[in-house]
């Protein structure tokens, strides 16, 4: 087991380096970035240096004057020590801006993850046990509809109904207009109020996939021989489903859910942007659109790490949860 994990980690590191390199090349090859914008602005000012001179100066300041390969190794060297440079757009160290914004994303992610699980798994099981009945069809169609909803359309509908017509929530943002005048409890409730619509969006969008996954796996288990045996023994249907079938369904479920844990830190780029929640997704969206290379670079590599970590966790969990699996 330990050997397997070490091997997987090593492979992951190699993959990560390649991914980082590809991203770096891409970012450096972009014909325009924040630096170009700044240089253009500065060269417009009366009596200023020419655009090229400004560009050269800015490149030197931000370490962009090196070639792509040496530049990449310089970046790697710093990144390993945790120094991702200063964000151009936010003018603070990248890690500082990241630490500022990641927690709100994590809270949102965690809450919606919780709701996703408690809604999707029971529905998936019901659909599987009542296969080809009206209940199953209804759940299947709801699941697929949730799965097919474009985030922005659903978010817009929510806004129209609950902000514009019912005035329950604000259209966007994390804090209301009177935030500063509220006491501690009021501040908490204000923030919670602003998080309701984004979380509902996230839950609805992600619920479908998990529901389908649960149903498929449950069906597979229900078709297995040992379920027939259990029924033949005369066990009650409840015992068959929740004691025998569901436990075995948990194996793929836990594997998948465990794998998606790191993703909670990734932030919801589209949802956060739509609701102007200053989480990591929205912040990085703004950085990316502005061409802020250090921040984008950090965010992309961070996402890659999360994906690799997720794969690793699900592989390990698979072996942990299912005693039949032995990894050499």
């Amino acid at each position, binding site marked *: 087991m330990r050997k397997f994990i070490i091997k997987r980690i090593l*492979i992951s590191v190699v*993959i990560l380096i390649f*991914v980082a390199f590809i991203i770096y090349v*891409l970012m450096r090859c972009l014909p325009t970035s924040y630096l170009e914008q700044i240089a253009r602005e500065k060269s417009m000012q009366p009596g200023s240096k020419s655009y090229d001179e400004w560009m050269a100066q800015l490149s030197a300041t931000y370490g962009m004057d090196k070639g792509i390969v040496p530049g990449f190794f310089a970046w790697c060297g710093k990144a390993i020590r945790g120094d991702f440079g200063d964000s151009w757009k936010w003018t603070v160290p990248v890690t500082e801006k990241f630490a500022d914004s990641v927690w709100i994303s994590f809270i949102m992610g965690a809450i919606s993850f919780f709701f996703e699980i408690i809604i999707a798994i029971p529905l998936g099981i019901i659909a599987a046990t009542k296969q080809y009945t009206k209940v199953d069809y209804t759940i299947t169609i709801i699941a697929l509809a949730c799965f097919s909803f474009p985030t922005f359309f659903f978010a*817009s509908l929510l806004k129209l109904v609950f902000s514009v017509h019912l005035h329950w929530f604000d259209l966007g943002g994390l804090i209301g207009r009177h935030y500063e005048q509220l006491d501690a409890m009021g501040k908490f409730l204000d923030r919670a109020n602003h998080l309701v619509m984004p979380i509902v969006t996230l839950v609805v969008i992600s619920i479908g996939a998990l529901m389908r996954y649960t149903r498929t796996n449950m069906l597979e288990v229900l078709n297995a021989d040992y379920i027939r045996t259990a029924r033949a023994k005369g066990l009650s249907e409840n015992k068959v489903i929740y004691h025998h079938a569901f436990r075995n369904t948990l194996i793929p479920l836990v594997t998948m859910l465990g794998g998606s844990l790191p993703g909670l830190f990734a932030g919801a780029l589209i949802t956060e942007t739509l609701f102007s929640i200053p989480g990591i997704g929205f912040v990085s969206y703004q950085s990316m659109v502005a061409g802020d290379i250090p921040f984008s670079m950090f965010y992309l590599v961070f996402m890659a790490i999360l994906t690799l970590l997720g794969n690793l966790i699900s592989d390990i969990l698979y072996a942990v949860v299912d005693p039949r699996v032995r990894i050499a």
Partner: protein
Amino acid sequence: MSILDSHNEDERPLRVQNVPQAALNTHERNRAEAEADKMQNAVDEALAQDASAMADTEGYSLNDDRRVKTLSPTMLVIKRFLRNRVAMVGLFILAFMFLFSFLGGVLSPYGEAQLFYRNDDQNKPFAGVTENTDLRYIEGSANSFPSLARAKFTQALKAGDATFESKGVTYRYESLDEDIYLIYEVQASGPCAVATYETVSNSQSNDKLPFGFQLAILEAQAAKQASFEYEGVTYAIDEHGAVMDASGTEVAYASRYSIRAVMGDVFLSRQFKEELAEAIEAGEKVFTFTDVDGTTADYTITMDTGKAGWTILRSTSTRVFDTYSSPSAEHWLGTDRNGMDMLTRLMYGGRVSLYIGFVVVIIETVIGVILGGISGYCGGWVDNLIMRIVDVFYCIPSMPIIIILGAAMDAMRVDPQVRMLYLMLLLGFLGWAGIARLVRGQILSLREQEFMVAAEATGIRASRRIFKHLIPNVIPQLIVSMTMALGSTIITEATLSFLGLGVKFPFASWGNIINDVNDTFVLTNYWFIWIPAGICLLSTVLAFNLVGDGLRDAFDPKMKR
């Protein structure tokens, strides 16, 4: 599915027995017959035997009604699929969407980027009216009666003094009427100014009339004369204050109302002024006037208390883009921000969305099948290498990358058409890893099966073995995942277009149509801009998923139905 017809099965033994019995009977009847008949008997027997043999073969024949009815695996899949009602609904929606997008664009009377205009009525200030409640002064020559002197005159008038003095000049005045005062410098014989409540205006142009002429008109009006002479020409004057020359053409008129056009180049005819004055006196708020050219316009009269006058607003129609117009018979879903027909945009948008979806999925599939196939078939280091590449592509966060590239393309002002091409290539290139994994996994398990050993034993080429024997077996899973991928690609494209980083104007796409909703005013007031596009998007993606789901069930031989 029972295959043999049970009715036939019951009948078979009966028939087989019947025929020999019939043959026996003939035999008994012919027993006492002559020897000569033996020949005939023999023939009969032979015939009977023949008949029995015939009946025998008939019993076991493979005529159509007895043939074992089997279905090919493909037919079984299709049958299972057709029986899935939910999937059929999906298929129906898809068919509708395809017709809507590809045929609708052709049938629609409007073009994708055709602009519509409407005439917008706007009330613009047209003229200002003031009633003379103060004395107005007409000066004989420039600055001949300055404002200080005017003030003194008013004082003198109130006090009843016959003369007054200003800046060392002494003036006298004489009253011609209650409303008209002629002002003289004491020694001078001709008046240097006239103070009056009336205004004398030129009827033919905006030019000022000479002092003498104005004076003559005022004098004539005060004396209630029907005509007067000025510089050798005789003019007629009527009770309204209109001054006509010998040919009957109106040259000037006097009125208590001072009416000025707001725009310098607009000339207000006397008739207009007269009717306007009447309307104001009657206390009307609106009046309509048809000018000499026959154009009728509506005017709104508003009281301006501050200036103690009236402002006349003329409603003029301006040609503007027909933006955000509500659904009507002409535009079933209204018009969008640019004044384009929404329904037509929706059709073309569907075309773009579906087109991009298909191209991207085809690119993904081609790359995925080739690399996955090679990887699964070859194994060893090739497999390892390709799988690591797949891992790398799996790790690259595609959405952020596309956003970054989209923003860069924005900055470079890439042509929208070229941009669409880049978008498709990019989405395809970033999305093949999943399909490669799927194909590889399938091929790894298929490779070990007997038919592959047989294929290898026949000695056919490796490429043929892959593409002729392995890939067709992967196709079921491939079709399912392609259908699902179509849905998610359409969502990705729509999301990018929604963020303004995908398909760009003038091309329509369902995503960039909804983009307008970023404007809260549109979100709140113009549902017809974004809800139809969202429904199209949702139903198409849902339909792809339903069909994909149905296909997965249909392809799965373990399914119970």
